[in-house]
């Protein structure tokens, strides 16, 4: 398949290495160090955590270069960084900086309300968010080598992450039972290329790893996301907006590995203090939702 050439395999290769892990949002080198020491498999550099972007408003952009360089110097694990949707010039800067993965993210203020970045034009791999299968396959068609369900970033509420993971898993299962004559119409319905629809029809999964993000705040939240099909989890505000970032980071890493063993999740949760304050997503006005950004 033309989407899955050798350059793409190298990009997916790093996503494979992050499976089963916890990727943590960090805003500076000190937080990155806490994340690495707790056992994060990668860190995601961003200007402000989603909960603060939500509270403070304004335009959210790529992180300051000085801060990203310091993070890259401080930790030995992969460093990811966020760019605004469609802002390929920001992405070029991050590629020149040699970050390990770029997240074209709905958490930042979109730069283009029609088009995402042509990610195949880059050597650095990209991860993108999705709420359903059509959105995931469009991003893969553009060159994303990792998908994460969006959830609702900065909410501390797992409900949207659950909705999006259940949706995509259900849609993938449904594709596997269709007849070959149904696939072209399905491709039209999903708004996704036929080749990728055929891939999911045959394999029952995406051609790239599928992680979960947006609302994970506790060890049990991480376990829930994994049970529903996430191959790894992103934790944003959940760690550094809690009362005990170090303990919580460790607890989520610990529970995430043995999520199928309730005793291990219990043990990981034992010493925890206050989780981040959560938001009722149903009460957020449509204009404040981050998950609806992306086309």
């Amino acid at each position, binding site marked *: 398949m033309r989407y899955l050439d050798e350059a793409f395999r190298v990009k997916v290769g790093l996503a494979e290495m992050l499976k089963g892990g916890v990727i943590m949002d960090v805003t500076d080198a000190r937080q990155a160090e806490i994340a690495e020491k707790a056992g994060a498999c990668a860190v995601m550099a961003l200007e402000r955590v989603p909960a603060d972007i939500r509270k403070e408003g304004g335009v959210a952009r790529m992180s300051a270069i000085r801060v990203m360089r310091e993070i890259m110097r401080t930790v030995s694990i992969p460093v990811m960084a966020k760019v605004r949707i469609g802002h390929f010039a920001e992405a070029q800067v991050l590629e020149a900086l040699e970050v390990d993965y770029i997240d074209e993210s709905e958490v930042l203020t979109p730069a283009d309300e029609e088009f995402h970045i042509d990610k195949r034009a880059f050597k650095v791999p990209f991860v993108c968010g999705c709420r359903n299968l059509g959105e995931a396959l469009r991003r893969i068609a553009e060159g994303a080598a990792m998908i994460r369900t969006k959830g609702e970033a900065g909410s501390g509420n797992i409900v949207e992450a659950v909705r999006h993971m259940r949706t995509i898993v259900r849609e993938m299962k449904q594709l596997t039972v269709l007849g070959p004559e149904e696939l072209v119409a399905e491709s039209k319905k999903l708004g996704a290329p036929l080749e990728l629809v055929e891939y999911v029809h045959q394999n029952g999964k995406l051609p790239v790893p599928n992680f979960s993000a947006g609302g994970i705040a506790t060890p049990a939240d991480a376990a829930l996301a994994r049970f529903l099909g996430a191959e790894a989890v992103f934790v944003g505000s959940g760690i550094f907006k809690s009362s005990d970032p170090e303990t919580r980071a*460790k607890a989520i890493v610990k529970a995430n*590995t043995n999520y199928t063993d309730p005793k291990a999740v219990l043990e990981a949760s034992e010493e925890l203090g206050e989780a981040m304050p959560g938001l009722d997503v149903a009460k957020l006005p449509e204009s404040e939702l981050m998950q609806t950004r992306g086309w």
Partner: protein
Amino acid sequence: MRVGVLALQGDFEAHAAALRRACASADVVEVRQVAHLEGLAGLVIPGGESTTMLKLMEYYGLFEPLREFGSRRPVFGTCAGAILLASEVLNPAQASLGLVDLTVERNAYGRQLDSRVVRIAGHELGGEPELEAVFIRAPIIRHIGEGCQVLAQYGGDPVLVEAGSHLVATFHPELSSDPRVHSLFLSKVTV
């Protein structure tokens, strides 16, 4: 024959699939806790982040049991697994199981932009003359001890090393369809 794959973090599923490709009857189990090591004939330590795996070994008390397991049964490590099996780790220095007399430098080719797929000729695996090797933020073996045999090299550095019953690769044979490296490991497990 029951073979374990350390499933703390990383591409353990790719290894399980590769073991099954190499031997359809292999009984592959995921190892996340000490009790899961019981009755295993061999163990694979996959690619992933070595610092993360070390932390999880600490959280679940697996470090010493893994060393003990490796002292009597074959272990195969790829990339992060190679780092964990080594006797000395550089960039930065970190703890390791020390089951194979090797010095390994982490992320020695650079960052993700330096990851690559290459074809290696002149290896010692037999069969097809070329071996595909996928390197992802790979380490480089800087020194090998006595008793280590180099089975493949890339750019003048050893990338596949046999040491008694253990096997070490700095690349990811589990991400290629060629089953030869996993077959070699399984042949050590069945001895």
